[in-house]
């Protein structure tokens, strides 16, 4: 039960960081990593309690997805900085019209 609370708290901290962060897009990517950490903690907890293996295998898959996501996200961040000159979230108003 405490693992459930821990993973929910980390997930909510990650979402709160994504919403409240206004200065840097990279911190937003770190918050996505925190959300993935929360899901991994939940899966491993379930794998440990139920004595099954699917949670651990899916944790490895989530690790892969996290690595791919951070690579793509940081490449997009570098391109965005080349395009706009800043990576502040409040400056991302290309769609404002």
């Amino acid at each position, binding site marked *: 039960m405490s693992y459930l609370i821990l993973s929910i708290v980390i997930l909510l901290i990650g*979402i709160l960081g994504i919403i409240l962060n206004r200065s*840097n897009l990279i911190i937003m990517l770190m918050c996505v990593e925190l959300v993935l*950490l929360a899901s991994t*903690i939940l899966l491993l907890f379930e794998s440990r309690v139920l004595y099954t293996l699917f949670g651990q295998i899916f944790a*490895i898959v989530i*690790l892969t997805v996290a690595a791919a*996501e951070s690579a793509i996200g940081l490449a997009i961040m*570098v391109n965005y900085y080349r395009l706009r000159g800043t990576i502040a979230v409040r400056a991302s108003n290309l769609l404002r019209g």
Partner: protein
Amino acid sequence: MNSLFMIFSLGIVGASLMVISTPNPVYSVFWLVIAFVNAAVMFISLGLDYIGLIFIIVYVGAIAILFLFVIMLIQQPNKIDSQDHSHFLPIGLSVIFLFYSLLTNSPKYISNPVIGSRTNIGAIGSHLYTTYYELVLIASLVLLVAMIGAILLAKQPNSPFLYNSHGESLRSRQDLFLQISREHL
């Protein structure tokens, strides 16, 4: 065991709070490293040794270093953002409440193959390459797509092609097939 879990979980929660609250992104990366090391030690103390070591290798050794490299590449002007963003707090709390209600209403678990009396890495290997081989294929495809996408995104367009109105390149290029077959025309 329980006090150990409390120590590590408080470490994870405090480090992740520091991740979202420090204005300097370099310190934020360091707090993220601390959170992931705490999580890895917690997994190892649970008995999931392979996952814990892989966490340290992948997250601390690869992803955090990647973040640090990009932060060094994108050197922002060194001003500290001291604006008040507390007016985003109601929408943040409402989204958190939405996610919390989604989580508490999520369906229960499904049944799965049993580990047995093997070591952790042996069980993972023997199941990952036989029962769940599709996941290995999907993970390899994800990594391939990420690699190609990152290379294509980060490629510097140092020689931008100039196109005229016909969509052809203004730069004259050597067309070997046309040159060789010209005398046979």
